[in-house]
């Protein structure tokens, strides 16, 4: 068994920064995806979505 994770204040700050950056990137993806969705025919986007939903 390992000793477990030990984080300093600096490590935690770095982690929080990474989480915030990931969140921002997720939101940017949501925007990009919504824009793509709006200009894409229903048949095309729904077929792609179904590849995920019907797995």
């Amino acid at each position: 068994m390992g000793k477990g994770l030990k984080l300093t204040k600096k490590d935690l700050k770095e982690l929080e920064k990474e989480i915030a950056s990931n969140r921002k990137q997720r939101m940017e993806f949501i925007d990009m995806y919504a824009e793509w969705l709006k200009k894409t025919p229903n048949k095309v986007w729904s077929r792609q979505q179904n590849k995920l939903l019907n797995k």
Partner: protein
Amino acid sequence: MEFEFRHGKIKFNRELSNLDKLTIRFTKVLKRQKIDYVIISGYIAILFGRSRNTEDVDLFIEKIDKKRFFSFWKELGEEGFECVNTSNPDDAYDSYINDELALRFAVKGTIIPNFELKFSKTKYNIYSLKHKVEVSINNEIINTSELEMQIAFKLKLGSEKDFEDARHLYKVFKEHLNIGLLTSHMAELKVEKRAEKILWGKG
């Protein structure tokens, strides 16, 4: 995305997913039983293209008495659904749905995806049911929550997934939303600060 957004109704056609087909099958039972319902939460974002899956579809239904509930239970069984919480309809009514606990129904022999049902009781539930939106998908009708309320409520729920659903719905429908109504819901739910960051900001 091609859709008609008119008089509080949304009409569109697209390739149906297995979840869409199941939702249509489930809500048809509600319709035949003349039980008023509204779908809320994550499925709405998925219905309108969000790139994620879900394990459940949440619904509020009008409060019904035990006799009507038994009839609904029977038809759900005939349609191939069973209750995940209990196999006893008396228990389902008394210990769950009439006691403010959700009941889950899934296709017999499965547990996900499932339909999570609650009676509409709070002001928010009752509003959602009263102001539901009729969505026609490939000429099949399902009732969903008003989009403005759905976006505001997703901000209230507050998980990363909820924030992303709210932003997705806002970005897809922003030209069609009643922004006055949306901001009024956000004020009532006290989520204006979240909206500044999640909807209007960069996240």
